[in-house]
């Protein structure tokens, strides 16, 4: 804990203190202290059910936390819903993708921030389909996915195609923080490579990112740091850029064979 405090606050984009979430009797997330610096790319790893997505859902306001506090961009925040989080500048690819099944690709890409005309009409302002379709093609290009027609509805897409739409959506808008929950799980070899390129671009642009992933190679290739979750608790904070850490080490942390020093007292 004390070590983390050393950093200059101005340097930090996201910090959680004692973040906790219980679902009835299930302690899905327990006392998570987490820090993300500006421009940093951090991976979250851990077993299935370790609480990774739960952590993401608390930060993005999808659920209301049981306990703890979240400081984003210097201010303590209480997001009432995902809308608040997005307005604060957090873009997220959720594990459940959050796509509207009966809408088409470009509708989904711009959901909640449509390009419009006649803006004086308030909620009844007119959609600019042409502009949106054009931008959609460009955004999809980046992910390398193949889709028969962007007019097809999401329900007619393959698992990987859906995931690419969700990623394209997040990648199309500038943000202060990007979160991706297992973005390449359903992707093919080529598409995965493309998405990894997108992540690299973000890194170059200095945009911070949290990546939840089970893919060891991906994490070592792209990330600066690994946070390991186990049974709802953070159990390791591994600086893979500077320290000499191998894949086996990470697996040891994930399985519980090892625990990070500073997390010893709360170990399970």
């Amino acid at each position: 804990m004390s070590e983390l405090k050393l950093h200059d606050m101005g340097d930090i984009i996201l910090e959680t203190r004692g973040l906790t979430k219980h679902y009835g009797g299930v302690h899905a997330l327990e006392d998570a202290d987490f820090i993300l610096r500006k421009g940093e790319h951090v991976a979250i790893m851990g077993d299935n059910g370790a609480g990774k997505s739960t952590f993401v859902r608390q930060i993005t306001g999808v659920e209301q936390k049981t306990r703890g506090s979240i400081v984003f961009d210097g201010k303590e925040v209480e997001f009432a819903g995902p809308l608040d989080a997005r307005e604060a500048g957090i873009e997220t690819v959720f594990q459940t993708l959050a796509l509207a099944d009966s809408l088409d690709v470009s509708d989904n890409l711009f959901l909640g921030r449509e390009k419009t005309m006649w803006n004086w009409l308030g909620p009844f302002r007119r959609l600019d389909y042409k502009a949106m379709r054009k931008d959609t093609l460009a955004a999809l290009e980046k992910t390398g996915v193949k889709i028969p027609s962007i007019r097809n509805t999401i329900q007619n897409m393959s698992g990987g195609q859906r995931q690419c739409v969700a990623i394209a959506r997040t990648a199309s808008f500038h943000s202060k923080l990007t979160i991706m929950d297992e973005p390449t799980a359903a992707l093919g070899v080529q598409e995965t490579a493309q998405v990894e390129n997108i992540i690299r671009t973000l890194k170059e642009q200095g945009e911070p990112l949290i990546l939840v992933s089970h893919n060891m190679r991906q994490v070592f290739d792209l990330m600066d740091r690994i946070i390991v979750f186990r049974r709802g608790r953070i159990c390791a904070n591994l600086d893979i850029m500077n320290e000499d850490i191998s894949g086996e080490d990470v697996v040891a942390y994930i399985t519980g064979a090892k625990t990070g020093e500073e997390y010893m007292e709360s170990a399970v």
Partner: protein
Amino acid sequence: MADSTEGIGGLKYDKTKRAWPNELNIFFALIAIVLIFEALGQILPYMNGQSMLFDFNTKRDGTILNIARLKIIILQVSIIGIIALGVTQVIISGGIDLSSGPLVGAAAMIVMSFAQTELVNGNPNPKAVFGDWAFDLPVIVPVIVGLSFGAFIGAINGSLIAYTRIPPFIATLGMFLICRGIAQWWTRGQPVSFPTEGYAWLGSGMMPVVWFLMLAVLFHFVLRHTVYGKHTYAIGSNEDAARMSGINVQRHKILVYMIASMLAAFAAIVLSSKNLTAQTGMGQFYELFAIAMAVIGGVSLTGGRGSVVGTVLGAMVFGVIQSGFTYIRLDAFYQLMAMGTIIISAVVLDQWRQKTGKSRS
């Protein structure tokens, strides 16, 4: 992209085989029903070869179309049709509105009491609800009262559904009962009649049809081409996704229910004007028929799918059936059975056409 046969990433895609629009199916069902009635007119001995839509003998209006029939076919569904436009939006957003029928009754009673004349046939209005001040008001007053009442009821419906998360079925069933109560309580059950001339104009002649079609065009545009419409479809398609995408789902739902209830209140205005009276029982079963029109028109009760064009065609199906029954003089005791069968058949036909297009549920 216009005519290519390749999608993004060079995937083969045969553009000529674009999905068959839902609305065409129901349009064909409509034509089929008309043809059946025309055939019955030729077959049934007592009909003397009469035609339903044509009028070869008299040429009353200088046209071979039976204009009177065409008019009544659409006139008799216009008022429920106006409600169905609102119900369509509610259902697309994944909800349901059972309160629209009773709301018509309550709104008609309230509105009519602000639309009364002072003198009827030269005598004092025997149905006066309020004192002198409420006589001969300009037509805008009852209209605004009615729309405000609708907006108020809709706002309650919407807020309950959005904030307390109770099922729309229950919220609007509760409002169903409350509105029936309001209708009966307003004048303790006495009907209210004798509106001003200005008010009587609103629903006179073919005015209900004019309102219905104007509103249909308006809401067709709104649902297809505005942010409001897009969000309505998105919420109905996947409410969680819509919320996670940053749509203000709660505010939007309230808006949807308000618009639906204002349309129902407007239907009440047109209805009471057309009938020159308001009665507590008005609007009974309108909610069911409005929902049925929407569903026959292809609006999916699970939300996210449907269109105003479909609903208008769904309304026409009812109009044709009702007129057709009187035209072939079907015994009143068989009418309900026949109506039930036709409604089911129309949707079965629609479903069956869709299947040929895609086989996955």
